C-alpha cells in the first residue's frame, strides 16, 4: 500500500463523481427530501419523528454508499479498468481505502446537509450531540461501501447489482429496530437481526440520539467497526490479480 496511490485513487473517484452532477444532487438532496416527507407523514406525532429521524440521518449514507459502490465496482470490472489496475503496481488496499476515503467524504457532506435540514428546518429534536451522529453516519457510509464492494463481485449486470439493494439493505432496515423495537419481533427475526450489521449501526445511532453515551454505544460502534473490517477483507478477496 502506498499513500500517494491511495490518495490518487480517492481523488479519481471524487473527480468521477464531480462530473456526474445528477448523482451528486440525488445523493445529497434525496435524504433531506425523504425526511421532509416523513415529518409530514408523522404530522402531529412529533415523538415518532424524533425517534426515527435522527437515526435515519445516519442510515441514509449506508444505503447511498452501498448502491454507489456496487455500481462503481461493477463498472470497474466490466469496463476492464479493474483488470488494468490489477496489472499495475497498486495494492488492493489502495483501491479499498481510496474508495473508502472518497465515499466517506461524500457521506459527510450528505449527512451534514441532511442534519442542517432535519435539525434546523424540520425541527427534529435530539438529546444527543449532532456531531456524534455525523461520525456514526461516516462509519455507516464505510459499512455500506465495504458491503457494496464485496457484494458487487456477485453481480454480473447492473440490473442484478441494483436488486441487491432490496435484497440486502431493506431486510436489514426492517429488522434493525427502526420501525418496530426488536424485542417485539418474533424470536426468529430477533435472532436474525442479531447477525445483521445494520442492527448495531441503528442501535448506536439511537443511543447517540438519546444521549445515552455509555458502554452499550461503544460496543455497538465496535461491532460496526468489526463488520467494516470483515467486509473489506472479504471485498479484497474479490479483487483478483488473475481471472479465468
Amino acid at each position: 500500500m502506498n499513500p500517494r496511490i491511495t490518495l490518487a485513487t480517492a481523488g479519481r473517484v471524487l473527480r468521477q463523481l464531480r462530473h456526474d452532477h445528477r448523482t451528486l444532487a440525488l445523493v445529497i438532496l434525496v435524504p433531506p427530501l425523504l425526511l421532509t416527507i416523513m415529518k409530514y407523514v408523522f404530522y402531529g406525532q412529533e415523538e415518532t419523528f424524533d425517534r426515527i429521524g435522527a437515526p435515519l440521518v445516519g442510515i441514509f449514507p449506508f444505503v447511498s454508499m452501498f448502491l454507489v459502490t456496487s455500481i462503481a465496482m461493477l463498472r470497474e470490472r466490466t469496463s476492464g479498468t479493474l483488470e488494468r489496475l490489477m496489472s499495475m503496481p497498486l495494492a488492493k488496499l489502495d483501491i479499498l481505502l481510496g474508495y473508502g476515503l472518497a465515499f466517506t467524504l461524500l457521506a459527510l457532506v450528505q449527512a451534514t446537509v441532511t442534519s442542517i435540514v432535519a435539525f434546523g428546518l424540520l425541527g427534529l429534536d435530539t438529546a444527543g450531540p449532532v456531531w456524534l451522529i455525523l461520525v456514526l453516519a461516516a462509519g455507516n457510509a464505510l459499512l455500506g461501501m465495504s458491503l457494496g464492494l464485496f457484494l458487487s463481485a456477485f453481480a454480473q449486470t447492473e440490473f442484478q447489482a441494483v436488486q441487491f439493494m432490496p435484497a440486502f439493505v431493506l431486510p436489514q432496515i426492517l429488522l434493525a429496530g427502526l420501525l418496530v423495537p426488536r424485542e417485539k419481533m418474533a424470536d426468529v427475526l430477533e435472532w436474525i437481526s442479531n447477525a445483521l450489521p445494520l442492527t448495531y449501526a441503528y442501535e448506536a445511532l439511537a443511543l447517540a440520539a438519546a444521549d445515552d453515551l455509555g458502554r452499550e454505544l461503544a460496543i455497538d460502534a465496535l461491532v460496526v467497526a468489526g463488520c467494516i473490517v470483515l467486509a473489506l477483507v472479504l471485498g479484497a478477496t474479490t479483487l483478483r490479480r488473475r481471472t479465468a
Partner: protein
Amino acid sequence: MMNSSPAIGIRRLNVRRGGRLVLPELSLDVRRGIVTGLLGPSGSGKTTLIRAIVGVQIVESGEVNVLGEPAGSEALRRRIGYVTQAPSVYSDLTVRQNLEYFAAILGAPSGGVKEAIDAVALGGHANQMVRTLSGGETSRVSLATALLGHPDLLVLDEPTVGLDPVLRRDLWNMFHELAAGGTTLLVSSHVMDEAERCDDLVLLRNGRIVATGSPSELREETHTEDLEEAFLALAEAS
C-alpha cells in the same frame, strides 16, 4: 545493455476457459527490442495468450517468463504496458484525468502525461470527457495509458481497430521507434495487412501456433506473394 535472452519465454502453457482447453501445450519465444505481431482469426486464443503473458489469466499449467521473471510477478507490474481489446479507461473522466491517475499509480513524472497524449495525437482532446470521444479516440486513450512510465514491454491487444489509415500508419511508426529505443512490443491483430509491418510474426489458429518467422521468411517458406495466402497455406498444412 543488450540482452539476448527472449523477452517472453513460454513453455508448454495450458489454459482452460469455460471447460475448454483454449491453449494446449503452447510454447513460444518472443525476441527483445522488436515488434512481434500475434496474428490469428477471432477466437484463435490471442487474447488468452496475451492475458497469460501479462499475468492476469489463470493458467492450468506451464511456464511463462517475461523479462526474466515469472509472468504476473510484482516486479513486472511497472515494466509492462498493457492495452486490452476494449478500451479500459474511465469514460466519466477527461483524457488528461485518466492519464494523470494512471501516471500517479506508476509514479511517472507529470511531464509523461502530455508526452503520452501527444504520442497518440489526442492533444486537442486532452480536456474532453472520454465518453464523448469516438471509438478510435477512446482506444487511443487506452494506448496512451500503456505508454506511461516507458515500459520495457508493451502488450497491445488489437490497438489499431477502427483507426483511420493515416493514424494507423503513424502508430505503427511509433511502435517501430519504440522498438528502436529498446522496447519490446507484442501486438495482436486479426487484419493480415498489419502483419507486413511487424518484424516477427506468430500465427495462431485454434490455440496452436501455426508458424513463426519474419514476413519475408513466411512468404518464402510458403512460396506465396502475400501474407494472407501464406497464412492460408500454413493453416491448411497444419
